[in-house]
Structures are given as C-alpha cells and as structure tokens.
C-alpha cells in the first residue's frame, strides 16, 4: 500500500508537471516556437548543437526541470563499447542535457543505468563517465545490486503485478530518458521504452517469463520519463543491442514528451537489417500505443524539423 501511495504521488507530480508546462506555454507566447507545441522535435546536426536546439524548440529544459530538483538522466550505457559502436548513448548528448539541467537550477543530476556488462567497464568504455567528470553535481552511476531497487505495484499491469524500480528514479523529481537508436534481437528496436528495462531489477523475467512486448507496455505505465531525447546521431541497424553490427549515421536528435511517438519516429530514421519499417511494425510500440501510452502514427503528430 505504501508503494502504491508513492505511485500516486508520482503520477500526481506528472500531471502537475504537465499542467505547469502548459501554463508556462500559455504565459510565454513570445517564443515563436512555443506558439505551437510540437509533439516531436527532430534536429539534424552534431550531437551537441542538435541536442541544444532540440531542447530550445521543446520550450527549454526549464519546462521540465525546476530549481533545486533532483534529476535522473537515463542514457543507454549498458555495454562496454565505445561510442562509435552505436550501442550506447553518445556522451555528448548526455553532457549537453546535464548542462542544460544544471542551468535550469537542478540540484543533483544522476546519470544512471543498470548496465548489462560490468558497470565500471561500461561507464569507462562508453565514454560517459569521462565526459561528465568535469561537470559538478553530475554523477554517473552504474548499478548492479538489488539493494538499489524498490518494489512498486503496477496497477494497470497486464502481465506485471509488481516491479522493482531503481530507488533513485522513484525518489527524484525528474526523469529524462536519453536512449540511443539501435536494433534489438528480441524486440526489433531498443529505444526509449525498451530502455526502461535499464531501470528495473528483474529484467530476465521479461525475456523468459512474460511476453516482453506486453511487459514493456506495463512498465511504461509506471515509469514515465517527463522527456525523451532520442540520440539518433548513430543508429546500430543490425546486431543490436550489444553489437557488433552495422552503424549508420542519421545525425539526428529527436525530442518529445510522448515516449511512443519518439520511438516511433526513431524507427523511421534508418533501415533495419536493410529494410524500412514503421513504428506500428514494432510490436512493443504498437502494444504501448494500443494501451493508450502514446501516439504511434507520424502523420498525426506535429513535428518540428530543423537543423543545428
């Protein structure tokens, strides 16, 4: 029950955050890009500039991060492989978002992932720890122990009743998802929604116990990042999630509040295994969409496309 209580608080917070965001937009019609709120912002260019521009068009990071808040950034840094392998989020995307959060007055920023490989190796080889080293109040943390997770209920779960979520995610005010665009041998692609599995303890059950697509949708009902910034600077279009595989360079940053919409756009940025797909063709995205967790059809989205 206690857990359930926390869940409510969290959802309340999400609502108020959304309301706050809406209000801030209503109050500031001066920004040209705020006149129309976009579902998705797609910026091409180098990771730093494109990420900055994307945040700007989204209405600034201050829409999501308030002074004194604790922020969890969830990049994919699950593999002990360098940035060019395409397995992990680009370090510069992480640092750019972290900087922006600090500028908005965030108190502490935790860059966290329950890594698949040894945490120290993943943090080192992904380049993310090194990149964040010089930024104060940014902590890059790889997790591999159950004690850092806390069980919560999944009220709307179809296959999941309970799930153990990283405590820091439950206790901090803001969660920003920073996935990378890559293929996945079990779920087609692994982006924002699949990346949520890096925040829970018992993920093997997703593979051997549950229908992974249903379980992912269940997970998306309880872990809701306020913002998803998809790093499509590189796309690992085969051999994912761990590679080695073919790496393409769409050079895009895709930002949005709707995690399904962001992932759905991500599906279209590159051909997977030599074939073009749409968001609807990725089963876990389709399930999430059908469960009302986000929009999947790009033609129904207001998309800002720009260059940095």
């Amino acid at each position, binding site marked *: 029950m206690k857990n359930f209580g926390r869940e409510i608080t969290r959802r309340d917070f999400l609502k108020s955050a959304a309301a706050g965001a809406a209000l801030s937009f209503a109050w500031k019609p001066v920004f040209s890009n705020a006149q129309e709120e976009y579902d998705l912002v797609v910026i091409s260019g180098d990771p730093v500039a494109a990420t900055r521009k994307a945040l700007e068009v989204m209405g600034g990071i201050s829409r999501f991060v308030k002074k004194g808040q604790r922020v969890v950034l969830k990049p994919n840094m699950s593999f002990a492989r360098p940035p060019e392998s395409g397995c992990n989020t680009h370090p510069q995307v992480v640092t750019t978002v972290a900087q922006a959060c600090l500028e908005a007055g965030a108190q502490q920023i935790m860059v966290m992932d329950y890594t698949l490989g040894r945490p120290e190796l993943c943090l080192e080889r992904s380049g993310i720890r090194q990149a964040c080293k010089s930024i104060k109040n940014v902590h890059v*943390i790889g*997790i591999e122990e159950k004690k850092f997770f806390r069980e919560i209920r999944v009220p709307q779960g179809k296959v999941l009743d309970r799930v153990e979520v990283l405590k820091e995610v439950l206790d901090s005010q803001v969660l920003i998802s920073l996935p990378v665009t890559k293929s996945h041998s079990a779920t087609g692609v692994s982006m924002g929604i699949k990346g949520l599995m890096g925040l829970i303890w018992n993920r093997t059950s997703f593979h051997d116990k549950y229908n992974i697509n249903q379980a992912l949708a269940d997970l998306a009902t309880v872990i809701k990042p306020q913002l998803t910034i998809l790093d499509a600077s590189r796309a690992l279009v*085969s051999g994912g*999630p761990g590679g080695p595989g073919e790496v393409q360079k769409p050079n895009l940053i895709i930002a949005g509040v709707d995690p399904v919409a962001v992932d759905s756009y991500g599906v279209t940025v590159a051909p997977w295994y030599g074939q073009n797909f749409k968001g609807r063709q990725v089963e876990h995205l389709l399930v999430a969409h059908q469960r009302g967790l986000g929009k999947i059809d790009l033609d129904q989205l207001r998309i800002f496309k720009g260059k940095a």
Partner: protein
Amino acid sequence: MRTFVQTFSLLLFTTFFSLATYKLPDWLPADIYLRLDPLLGLSAILAGKEIIGRALWSLIIVGTTLTIGRFFCGYVCPMGAVIDLSHYLLWRRKKNSPLKSEANFRKIKFFLLFIFLIAALAGVSLSYFMDPLPLLTRFYTFILYPLVITLINLFLDLMRPIFHALGWISLSHQHYSQPVYYLAIVTFLIFAGIVTLSRLTIRFWCRYLCPLGALLSFISPLGLWKRRVSQECNECLKCQKACPMGAVEENPKRIHLAECIQCRTCAEVCPKGAITFPTSFSLAKASEHQTSAKGGEYSTVDFSRRGFLYSAAGGLTLAFLADRTPFTPLKGKYQLIRPPGALPETDFLQTCIRCGECMKSCLTNTLQPCLWESGLTGLWTPKMDLRFAPCEQNCNVCGKVCPTQALRSLSLEEKTNAKVGTAVLRKEMCLVWAQDKLCLICDEICPYNAIVFRTVEGYRRPFVIASRCNGCGFCEQKCPIQGDSAIIVVPSGEIRLKEGSYLKEAQKLQLEFKPDPGDDKFILEESGFKVEGEQKGKENLSPAEKTQPKKPKGFLLIP
C-alpha cells in the same frame, strides 16, 4: 626500526596486491614481491629448464643477502611481518621457550628446500606449497580480499542513509562486486596453522619450516654484518631468550650465523651493551674474532650428505608420485579451460607458482583455483569457470601480474587471439533445439558474432562458428537453462604458445575474432516468427504480406 621497516614492507605488499586489478598500468609491477622471491624463480626455472625474465628480479634479493645477510626474513618478508604481528597480538605475554631438539627441527626446512628443488629438477613444481610469498598471496586472495570487500560493502550499506542525506550521491550508490573462490577454507586452515605454530615458539615457521629462509640462509653467512660479543658478556642469556630465531647458541657468544636475520634484538636487550654488529669481510676472520661463527654452519655441516640424499630421494619420490598419474597422459583431454596466454599445459604446470595473483586481479572472477581437476600437480592453478563468469574482452590483467609468466602478459589484441577453447552447443539441452523456444541469449551476448541463427525445420536455431569463437564464455554464463549450460566452452581448439604471436597463429589457423557485423543478415531469411496473440497485428496483415518471410524478430508484418 625493524618494526617500522616490517610494517612498511607489509603495507607495500598489501598495496601492490590491491593494485593487481583491472586496469593495471603496463609499467606497474604489481607482482614485484613474488618476482623478488629467489626460491620461486629458482624452482620455476629448474622445473621448466628455461630462464624466466621476471624471475631474474630475485637476483636483487640474492645480491643484497650476499652483502647484508639474511635481512629479508626480518625486514622484508610480509609473511614474517604477519607472523610477528599475530604473535604480538596473541601471545606476546607467553614465555618464549625454545623447543627441545631445536637443532633437528631446524633441519626440516633444509630437507623441504631440497625436496622442492629436486622435485623441480624432476619437472614437478612444489615449492609454491610452502614458499611464504605465494602462501600469503593466496591467503590475501582467497580470504582477506573477499573479506575486506564484504566489510566495505557492509560499511557502505550502513552509511548509505547518511551519505544520501549529505547529498553524496556517488558514495551513496557505491558498491563493490564480491569476489568468491572455491575452497578458500583450505587456504585459511593452512594459514591459520602457520600462525598458530608461533604459539609453540616465536617464529616457528621461519625457524623450522620456511624453505625460502633455508635458501637464503645458505648464502646469508657471506653477509658483511656479523654479531660480535665482547668480553663484557656476563652470560646472562637474555639475548638467547630474546632472539626470535633462536640463533644464539648455548654459549651466548656463539651464534648460528645462518639463522641470524640481522634483527639486532640481542644487542638491544643486552644489559652490558656487549653485542655489536661490525662489518667483517671474511668468514675466516669472523671465526677468528668470535671463535664460533662458522659461516654456513648448518647448511654445510649440520645438513649432512645423508640429509641431502634423503631429501633428494624424497623429492624424486614426490615428483614421481605427483607426475605418474593418469592426469599426466590426459593433459589437455579433460574439461579444463586455462586463462588466455597460459603456456602449453606441461610448461604451465611447471612454471605456475600458484600465488593466486591472477585470480585476484581477474575482473570478472572467472579465474578460480583448480583443486584436483588435473591432479596434485595442478593444485591451485588457475582455471576459468565460465558458467560462473565470462572472460572480459577488454581486460588482460591476469598475464600482467603473473610473476613467472606462466600466463603470458599480452596486449589486448594478442589476448583476444589467445583462444582458450571453443563453444559447443548441446542441442539436447538447448531451449531452441530441444523445445522450439524463442531464445537467442547466446547470440545476443556473443561479443564476436560467433553464434548465428539458421533456419532448420522451419525454426531459426543457433549454430556456433568455431573459427570466430575464442572461448570467452559469455554464452556459457548467460545460457538461461538451469544447471549446466546448453552451450559450453571446451578446450578444443585452444591456442597455447610458449612464445610468438597469438595473432599470427590465429591468422595461420584462419581464425578471426573480430567484433564486426558478421552475417546478421541471416535473420532476414528466417520464416518461423509468429505474431503470438496479437490480434490487432493479425487483422492488419494482408494475405500477401503474411507469406512474406523476410522480417527481423520484434518487427511486425504490417504496413
């Protein structure tokens, strides 16, 4: 002064030990203490009949012992420091009474030394069993290191709320992986036994048993500083009682020179100040002055020819017994995966000194001590327990810290090519082959794309491409079935080179361990994917698309 040097040396040993981990810089010799040990070097060289570069470091100890005397035992040896420390903590109030038949006990270590050296000559390395440095390193690796990690984690767990409240985010998430080792209790019992022996008499181990001490005492009488007792001596025997090595003879003016570890305790306790340690070059001169200090008294006189013959016979017998077992002809035929860069098995067994440093340094904890898997001669040698943990492709520490280079120190590229075995699928156990389940973990985890899926009987099923597998064991470890893995690494195809490049050897054998895209396109040819229970998906499928076979897993066949 001596306590200070001893403490410093023990701390230094501990520091080097703790540095032996991923990512050890190339220039840092974390195994320096083991390299300096002349007995280890000598027996590895005798057993392998080949000069080992790193073992030549021990000439430093040989040289200094020749000039100073047997100072190593009193000042440098970390085991000596531990024994002194534990004696101080546990039994310092106990009266220090020498054993009866002291002289006979003293000989034991020489017997042991010769047994080990003769056995080494016969090709069986045994000195690891009692050499203090590998003994202590093993104790550190199997007992102390895991214990310290447990305590640190316990402390971190206790402090976590406080760190959290203070906003020390990284510290509040700090956790160290717990290393574990097979049968650590054996090592513990041996170590506890050595420490407990000090209860009988101080430094029991060093006086009577230590083969390294025995080796050093052969050359130490040549050292420059020798004890001299002046005419002031009133024969109060205080020095005799205080000597930690029992080196002062019944006539306190005489000393067993070979046993003297230059600790100068006798000079400190002498109420008359009659004891000095002047330098003296010649042994003859020393005996003139002291009438007693015959150089190498025990080594040359007391340790008789008969004693030598006995121990030679003992060494040969031991070597014979240890080596003439089915394990010897079976070398390489049993399921035993050695670490990458291990010398060919015979050389490996002769050269490895079982210090456990590689197991300590191993990033993933896959390196574990052998017990009886390869017979007595393989005791405590490192093996890879790949069901427990894989070999990390970015790590090459085990070879770097090997003091005798039984595991060769290799660059990452060379190490990648030092194939330790080949993964073999056991189809009768595999979920996909035996039960038609959708499992692909081995393929997903393989860092070299050595596992591919091909359609067999309408189902995509895993295959191992042996030429791409270097035996790292990720597949074996991750295989989700209970009990033994359905994909295991067998020694077949391992590359064990005494010298030369593994990369070249692998190329010669047309092996390629490259993290390249591989033939992932095979996935497109699979046809067996079903959209299980997804009605929405199904109703959107047009008949034409339903028959379209090309679709990677996780994607649906809808427009």
